[in-house]
């Protein structure tokens, strides 16, 4: 089973610090925006605590007119790649063309191949939907399961004509969209972004439900407790169905810094099933977070290996070893 973090989409979808840098440029540095500006600065430099990031997004999504305008521009830049563009990379050198136009990487493609071959299950914390997109582009259908009910329905369906691989989405720090037309049913419901990505020609953020209103991006950045409470139902449901089918838990591109509950859940799962945990990510700032968690709480009870590589480097090698090709 693969557990995917933001690192899998590195270089394709902006990280939080890239988003922070965009806000530093766009927020006026006046008294009214001083607080938000300083928080965005911390986010851009990787110094922000979880509480500070939560405060920043709360300020940005407030009902104040100026905030709404900046947030609307951000939504367009993030989803459609409108100007001023969000940039990615260490030096901010790569412009982001918007999530709706983002294409899966080779890593996503490899993961899709494994899932389509029934060789792996995928649990993803990413909102970008690129693994499902890779499944569809690879010729196999693919579905994203967003809730415990989705997971139960998927595994309990009796008369499905064929097996369609699924990506189980764990609700974490997630972007959603909501219609700004208050009469539209989509105004009350959160739309997962991967469901908006079906039409590559989409040029504006028109609501797929009413076609009148515009989709407004929502960023859910809950506190630790709310985040855990939101994630557990789908995690337990997945564990119920997948428990005996998992022979290793491979974490790819997840720092683990803000996901302690998830680490505890995954290591407990590995302990119970006597399967190893692999942590695949390049050496860097947060490289040892998961290893340190293992050493403190699960050393001697779970086999753990750190693999110093990016998803792009490691996944092709892994697939080659097992001779998995596109079905």
């Amino acid at each position, binding site marked *: 089973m693969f557990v995917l973090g933001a690192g899998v989409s590195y270089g394709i979808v902006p990280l939080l610090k890239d988003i922070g840098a965009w806000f530093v440029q766009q927020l006026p540095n006046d008294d009214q925006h001083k607080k938000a500006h300083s928080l965005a600065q911390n986010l851009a430099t990787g110094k922000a605590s979880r509480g500070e990031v939560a405060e920043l997004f709360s300020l940005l999504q407030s009902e104040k007119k100026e905030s709404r305008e900046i947030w609307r521009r951000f939504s367009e830049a993030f989803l459609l790649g409108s100007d001023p563009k969000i940039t990615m990379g260490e030096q901010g050198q790569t412009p982001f063309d918007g999530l709706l136009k983002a294409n899966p990487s080779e890593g996503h493609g490899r993961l899709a191949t494994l899932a389509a*071959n*029934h*060789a792996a299950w995928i649990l993803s914390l990413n909102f970008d939907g690129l693994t499902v997109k890779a499944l569809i582009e690879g010729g196999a259908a693919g579905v994203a399961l967003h809730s415990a009910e989705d997971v*139960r329905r*998927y*595994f*309990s*369906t*009796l*008369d*499905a004509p*064929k*097996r*369609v691989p699924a990506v189980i989405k764990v609700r974490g720090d997630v972007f959603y969209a909501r219609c700004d037309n208050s009469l539209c049913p989509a105004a009350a419901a959160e739309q997962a972004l991967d469901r908006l990505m079906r039409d590559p020609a989409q040029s504006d953020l028109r609501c797929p439900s009413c076609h009148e209103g515009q989709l407004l991006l929502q960023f859910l950045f809950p506190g630790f407790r709310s985040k*855990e409470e939101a994630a*557990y139902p789908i995690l*337990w449901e997945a*564990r*119920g*169905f997948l*428990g*005996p*089918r*998992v*022979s290793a838990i491979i974490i790819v591109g997840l720092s683990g810094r803000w996901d302690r*509950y998830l680490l*505890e*859940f995954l290591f*407990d*799962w590995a302990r*119970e*099933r*006597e399967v190893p945990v692999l942590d695949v990510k390049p050496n860097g700032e947060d490289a040892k977070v998961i290893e340190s968690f293992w050493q403190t709480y699960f050393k001697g009870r779970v086999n753990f290996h750190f693999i110093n590589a990016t998803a792009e480097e490691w996944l092709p090698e892994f697939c080659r070893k*097992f001779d998995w090709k596109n079905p």
Partner: protein
Amino acid sequence: MNGALSYVAERDVVAAEYCPEGERRSFETCFAELVPEAARSILENVSQWGLKELWLGVAPGNHSRWNHTKGALTIALWWYHHLNRHLTSQGLAKDCLRQLGLKEGAEDALRKLVLLAVALHDIGHLPFAHLLGEVLESINWVPEGKGLSGLEQEVLEARLKEHFQGLWNKLGSELSCNPDSVQAAVTDLISGRHGLPWAQAIVNSPIDADKLDYVQRDSEFLRSHTSIAGGRLPPTGKEQKAQWLTEFFAEQQVNHAGMLCLSGRSAVLAADLMRDRIYLYDRFYLSPEIRAIERMAFELIQQFLIRAVMSERFSQTATAGTSSDHSLESTSTLGRRMEAEDAVGDIRKLKCGLVAHILMHLASRRRTSLMEFTVLEHMYEMLKNEDSVDAGVRDLWQQCFDQLWRLKERKVSISELAKRVLVREPLVLKRRQYDLALEILRPLQHVYARQALIDLVKLPRALGGGGRWRGRTARKVDEVDWNILVPEGPISRWGAGSKACRPLTDEAVRELERPYARVLVVAPFGSDVHSEYIWDRVRAALLEGGVELVRRARRA
């Protein structure tokens, strides 16, 4: 399939279809091909119930683990055939192979793997059946199990490695994979930890081929030899069995995710099976009459094993003349084993391994259908010469063995003996308070070691067998693996037309649960005023310790 055909004919039809070349072969031929000879020699002399057949005054005869294995394999063969036909027609068979990393064309090898796991599912059993596991559990000598009880798992792994290596090599070459992986897959299937849900459901699940066979087989044996379990036993007889199985398989299918789906009649019959199994545990396997007798045997086995493992002097005497293998004498005590391995490691695993080692040696020298009683007799012979033991305790051991010997010789019936040694009525408590009661009763047993034996047993869950997952994050979860889908709603509402749509969980079968444990006081010298006092002390200690008794004790 036509339910009117005899059971034997049915299994031959299936066996013929099972043949890869399509030629007609009898079930016996297929069986001989599938099951290695080593399995027969291990299982042939192990009775199905340990010592219980003797307590009923009947020689185990055909009621052996070997015959049960053949019965379970017959059912599995038929079941696999049914599901495989469905998988092939739905185009899901290839998915199953891919999921296991197998290449196309490996269907026959997969079938062998699953059926072999059924054929070897009892290979981890030592003499005395589950009583031995209980003995070790009560002295905390059982390493954490992977699915089966720790002891059974230990023996299973050792035997699969020791006796069947040729088989793993052969299957490994058929499947183009490492023989160790084949062995691991069979071990996982037997332990209930395999990742192919429908195959796991056949081998080890709450409704597996093992249970399908033993519930029928044991009911038949009980019906023929005793009225102890009352009249509410499932129907037996070849035609009824065939009819039952035909209906049970009729509305089963495998879905896209590999889950075994039970709809309509199949779900109803699965519920019946679980109900019958719980009934057998309540009224026979763990009934007060049987437990009273088993508790006396339990005491002798436990005292023997403690000494055989911990005392070098005792061990040398106990195993002398039983083995030509001198390694037994040199490493069969804990101290020697620790010296030999130069490490402590997991002490429970070490003790458990030693117990398995000793019992396998004792059993290997007694290849008769009464093997278990002769081993018990040997244990008692060793114990009675233990001069370092308190005379009162030795008298109690002697009394235990005398009572058991009289029962085996049919000088007394089980009901007469149970009536004599059972002190008042059982004390019933909630199953969740079992561990608490165990800790309360342990010191009391020491106090009254010369007069009485205290027995504590819990009734099993409705969903027995199969792997269980025990999560500890955020909330504690203890739940059976989700391999099977059943209809919505309480079990009493499953019926014709109800479609499988949710996993079979403890919650789904809550109506079937008998979540109780029972405490018995057994007086091998016969129930009298002293033992009634002990019973009263047991009851008072439980109440003082916070155990909630389900029924108020009343004088008989």
